C-alpha cells in the first residue's frame, strides 16, 4: 500500500497493472528465446535485471528518497535483452542496461518522466559502441553458425510458402525476442486482448509499413522487401508492440498517436531501404519520441494529461 502511494505521487501517467502484464509477457518471450537458442539467454536476462534494479536502487538511495520496487524496474532490462542478439557477452549487457536505466530513465526523474524510451537508448548506445557484437553477430538457430546480418530487404528470399513458415517458426537468425515470429504474434494478441496497450499504434505502424514498402519497392526495385513479408522481418513487430506503445513516451491523444505511428513506419522503411543502418525502427522510435508530442494540442501538454 505504501509502495502504491509513493508511486502515485511520483508518476501520474503510469498504470502499474499494464506494465506488470507486459513484463510477464516479456518474460514468456525470454523463455521462448532460451528454447530457440541456448539457456545462456536466461542468464543474460538475469544479469540485466539485477544490474537495472541495482542502478535504480543506488540512484534513489543516493538522493535519500524512499525506494518503491515495481514492475517498471524489470520492464526495461527485459526489453533490452530481448532486443540483443544471442550470445552477447555479459559485460555488454551490463553496460547497456546501466546506460539505458541511468541516462534514459533515472536522470529524467524516474518512471513515467522520461522523454526517450530507455530500452531504445540502450540499444542505440550498444549499437554505436559495439557495432560488430550487437549489429553483426547473429546466430542461425538451426546449425549455430554465426550470421553477419538479418535479411531485411530481400523479398525473394522468403518467396516460397515453406520458407515463410520457417520464418514464422523461428528458423532464421534474428534478435532473441523477435526470432520466433509466431510467438510474438500470439503474445502481442494477448497483450492487445488484455488492453494493456493501445491497439492504434501497432496497427498504424504495421499498415503504413506494408503500404510504404510496397509503394517504394516499385520505384526502387531490389532495395525493398515485399509489403506483406516486411511485417515479419527484423524487429518491427516486437518493437511496435512492446516499445512504441509505451504510454510514457508515446503521445496521448488518438490523432497524435496515429501520426506517431505513421512517422515511425515511414522512417523505418526509408532507413531499411536507403540508408546503411541495420534496423531502422530503433532510430524511428527515438526520433518520434522527440517529435511526437508536437502533434498534440498545446493545452494537452501543459496539463500533462
Amino acid at each position: 500500500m505504501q509502495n502504491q502511494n509513493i508511486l502515485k505521487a511520483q508518476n501520474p501517467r503510469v498504470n502499474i497493472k499494464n506494465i506488470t502484464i507486459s513484463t510477464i509477457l516479456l518474460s514468456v518471450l525470454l523463455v521462448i528465446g532460451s528454447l530457440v537458442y541456448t539457456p545462456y539467454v536466461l542468464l543474460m536476462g538475469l544479469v540485466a535485471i539485477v544490474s537495472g534494479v541495482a542502478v535504480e536502487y543506488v540512484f534513489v538511495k543516493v538522493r535519500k528518497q524512499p525506494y518503491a520496487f515495481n514492475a517498471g524496474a524489470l520492464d526495461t532490462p527485459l526489453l533490452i535483452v530481448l532486443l540483443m542478439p544471442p550470445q552477447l557477452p555479459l559485460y555488454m549487457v551490463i553496460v547497456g542496461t546501466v546506460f539505458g536505466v541511468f541516462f534514459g530513465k533515472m536522470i529524467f526523474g524516474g518512471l513515467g518522466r522520461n522523454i526517450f524510451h530507455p530500452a531504445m537508448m540502450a540499444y542505440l548506445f550498444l549499437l554505436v559502441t559495439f557495432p560488430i557484437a550487437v549489429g553483426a553477430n547473429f546466430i542461425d538457430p538451426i546449425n549455430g553458425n554465426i550470421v553477419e546480418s538479418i535479411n531485411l530487404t530481400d523479398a525473394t528470399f522468403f518467396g516460397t510458402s515453406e520458407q515463410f513458415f520457417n520464418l514464422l517458426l523461428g528458423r532464421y537468425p534474428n534478435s532473441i525476442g523477435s526470432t520466433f515470429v509466431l510467438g510474438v504474434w500470439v503474445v502481442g494478441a494477448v497483450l492487445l486482448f488484455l488492453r494493456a496497450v493501445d491497439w492504434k499504434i501497432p496497427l498504424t505502424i504495421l499498415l503504413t509499413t506494408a503500404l510504404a514498402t510496397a509503394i517504394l519497392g516499385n520505384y526502387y526495385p531490389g532495395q525493398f522487401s515485399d509489403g506483406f513479408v516486411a511485417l515479419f522481418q527484423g524487429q518491427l513487430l516486437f518493437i511496435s508492440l512492446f516499445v512504441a506503445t509505451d504510454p510514457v513516451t508515446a503521445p496521448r491523444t488518438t490523432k497524435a498517436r496515429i501520426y506517431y505511428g505513421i512517422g515511425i513506419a515511414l522512417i523505418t522503411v526509408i532507413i531499411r531501404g536507403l540508408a546503411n543502418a541495420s534496423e531502422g525502427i530503433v532510430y524511428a522510435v527515438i526520433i518520434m519520441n522527440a517529435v511526437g508530442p508536437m502533434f498534440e494540442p498545446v493545452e494537452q501538454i501543459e496539463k500533462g494529461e
Partner: protein
Amino acid sequence: MIEFSNIFEMIIAAVFVSNIILSFYLGIDHQLFIEKKHTMINKRVLVILIVLPLSSMISFVIQQSLLIEIDALGEIVRDLTYFRTITFIVVIILVNYIILGLLSKFFSNQFKNLQNDFKGVLPSTIVLGSVIVITSSVTTLLESVLLSLVVVFGYAFVLNILKFIENQLEMKVVPKSFQGLPLQLIILSIMALIFSGFGG
C-alpha cells in the same frame, strides 16, 4: 566537411547527417541554452541568418583569391590556409559591426532590441565554426550562400526541438545537479546518436 553533390543531398547532409550542432559540436552557447522561450532563440537565429551568409561569402572569396593561388597547371603556388582562422575572425567582426551600424542608423527603433544579440553572436562558436566548415566544403560562391542558409536552418531546427523537449520535462523531479544545461547536453548527445543513423 559537409559532403554533397546536388542541392537535395546538401539539405539532407546539412540538416540531418552532418548537422552543425550535432556532428561538429558548434554553437553550443551557454547564454542561448539557459533561455527558455522559443522567441528569444529565433531572434538569435535571425541574427545568425543575416551575418553568416555574408561572412561566408566574403571569406570564400578571400580564401579563393588571396589565401590559395593555383596556377594554370593546377599546382598550388601559394598556400596560406594556416592563416584562415585569423582572417575569418576579422571578416566576421567587420561584417557584424557594419550591419549593426547600418541597422542602428536606418531602423534605430525596431532594431534596438537586436543590439545585444548581434554582440552575443561574436563570442559564440557558431559563426566562425560554420564559416570554416562552409568554406572548406563548397566550390562556388552560390553554393556557399545556399549552404550557409541550410546550416542555419539545421541549427534552428535542433534548437527548437531541444527547447520543446525541455519544456515538456518536469524539472522538479530531475536531480538538482542535472537540472538545466547538463540535461540539455545529455538530450543533445542522444539526438546526435539518433541523427548518426541517417548516414549513407
